[in-house]
């Protein structure tokens, strides 16, 4: 049981980290928590679901379709709201309320489009067989989720730490004012980062339809809370921390499910509250300024 929980925790944890990466990136750049993050994941899940059930192609193809769409939408959205937020006296609170509204709109549209019931994909991402790892048997979406999450996260790290645009993004994350004075096109960089953040969320959706046992329009807030817990555990605004947070979260969840299934539902919330109150800068975070 220990071995099972350990492997499952790592595999699912990597996925959680990936699913939370966009939230962390959006926070780093916009200094606001995208409450609608989970709803974007839901949209990604629906895309995967429709591809599989209507077009009969592998649901993972949702990722290459969703990425350009999400980047474009995210950039447009940023351009639309940035002027209003810039004028506000309390941009953090206002954007929190704004994203709260956006989350409601997405949830309503998803309900209108796909009905309120939960939809479950019966075919797995790579057939239906179980996968054996170290003598333990797992549904095949466990390793599939990890196999998408790891290169996805590496790609983001490569972008942030090896590309010129990524350097500008990191500069922006550490100080908006200094970035502006250094001649960085802050608006364009922010818009692109926000687009990438949404693309990451939508990509995670293609797998969360399995990891969550399906997709329903109302899943958004729960997914946002989970992603937020993951990001806070690792340190908000620190994309690398999201992966560590995901691992901690995945392991805690899997061990709780193995040993105390009745109380496993409490784990995400208790973990989130504990980290926020005891070490708000995250397990490996430098202290970040917030509010």
């Amino acid at each position, binding site marked *: 049981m220990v071995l099972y929980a350990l492997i499952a925790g790592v595999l699912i944890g990597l996925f959680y980290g990936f699913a939370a990466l966009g939230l962390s990136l959006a926070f780093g750049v916009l200094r*606001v*928590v995208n409450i609608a993050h989970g709803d974007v994941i839901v949209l990604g899940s629906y895309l995967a679901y429709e591809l599989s059930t209507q077009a009969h192609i592998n649901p993972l193809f949702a990722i290459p379709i969703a990425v350009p769409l999400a980047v474009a939408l995210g950039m447009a959205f940023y351009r639309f*709201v940035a002027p*209003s937020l810039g004028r*506000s*006296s*309390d941009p*953090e*609170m*206002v*954007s*929190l*309320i*704004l994203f*709260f*509204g*956006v*989350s*409601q*709109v*997405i*949830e*309503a*549209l998803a*309900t*209108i489009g796909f009905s*309120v019931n939960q939809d479950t994909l019966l075919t797995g991402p790579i057939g239906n067989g179980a996968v054996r790892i170290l003598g333990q048997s797992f549904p095949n979406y466990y390793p599939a989720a990890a196999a998408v999450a790891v290169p996805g996260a590496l790609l983001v790290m490569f972008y942030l730490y090896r590309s010129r645009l990524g350097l500008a993004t990191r500069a922006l994350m550490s100080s908006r004012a200094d970035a502006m004075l250094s001649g960085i096109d802050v608006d364009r960089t922010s818009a692109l980062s926000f687009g990438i953040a949404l693309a990451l969320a939508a990509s995670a959706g293609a797998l969360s339809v399995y990891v969550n046992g399906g997709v329903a*329009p109302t899943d958004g*807030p729960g997914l946002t*809370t989970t992603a*937020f*817990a993951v990001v*806070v555990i690792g340190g908000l605004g620190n994309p690398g921390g999201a992966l560590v947070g995901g691992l901690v979260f995945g392991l805690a969840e899997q061990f709780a499910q193995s040993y105390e299934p*009745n*109380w496993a*539902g*409490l784990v*995400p*919330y*208790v973990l*989130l*509250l504990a980290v*926020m*109150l005891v070490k*708000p800068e995250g397990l490996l975070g430098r202290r970040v300024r*917030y*509010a």
Partner: protein
Amino acid sequence: MPEGVAGASGQRATRAQTWRRRGADVAAVLVPTVLFALARTVDSNLLLLVTIMVYVVLAQGVNVIYGFTGYLPFGYVGFFGAGAYGTYIAVAHLGAGAVEATVLGGVCAVLVAIVLIPLLRLRGAYFAIASLAAALALSSLVSNPSLQSVTNGPYGADLSQVFSSGGSYWTAVVIVAFAMLVVVVLRRSRLGLQLRAVRADQVSASYAGVNVVAARTGAWLLSALLAGLAGGVYAWAISTFYPTAVFDTTISLFAIVFALFGGVGTVLGPVVGAVVLYYVYNAIGVNDPQYFQLIFGVVIVVIALFLPGGLAAVLLGARRRLATRGADAG
């Protein structure tokens, strides 16, 4: 009504102004109370009226915590659910009467708020989401099968032995009056002034000798008390319910949107917001909740981007423009 007008136009408060202000305060408490008391002669659906009153109280509770301190509680429903379950436990295990049980529901929510005081160390989005996590944790705790002997776990609570549609209705009217009183008194009180100062600048407030933590905690507990009473009377009115019904995060959402729509920091804004929007919801939302949610979401986006002061700010802006135009003419 809102402070901007009184502050900007007033020179030294004259006796007449003082009386007018007191009159407005009394009216702010009495008018909604009397209207709700009379509402049963117009609309015989008492459960609907109780539900609206519950949302009026919740919107005022959000007003107290968000309007006065700037802490946005996404998990506000946690206090509502605590109130509902406190009431259930009081009736089922302590043999309390329904009215006492409702009060105990309020007390139960305050106890939860006391446990959650450390959350006030967090700010902004951290606080908002932490409060949500706390509410979800509480919900998961209450509906846990291991606690069946106390809360009846996921199988729901039954209060039908004390059911009284009239009793719960009148109790709700009294709670509305109490909520209005809390907000009016808070606005005029020293605590209210301190909270405004803390909201404006925490450090300056501290050097003005304001105990920032105590002031904020006061608002937090008051706000929890209102939600707990609302949850208690709601539980009484609907009689049987599942944990998912009284810990539904939609309840937080409604309360926050009603308050924002009407205008936080004002006395009547949240009342108007709750009544108007809940009637709209009742007209189109019950059958087609997704369309209502869509409208709702758009309203929130519009408020966030264009109308941070809510309906009250729009009306006041119009009034101020009229006033200046009148002054120019005269």
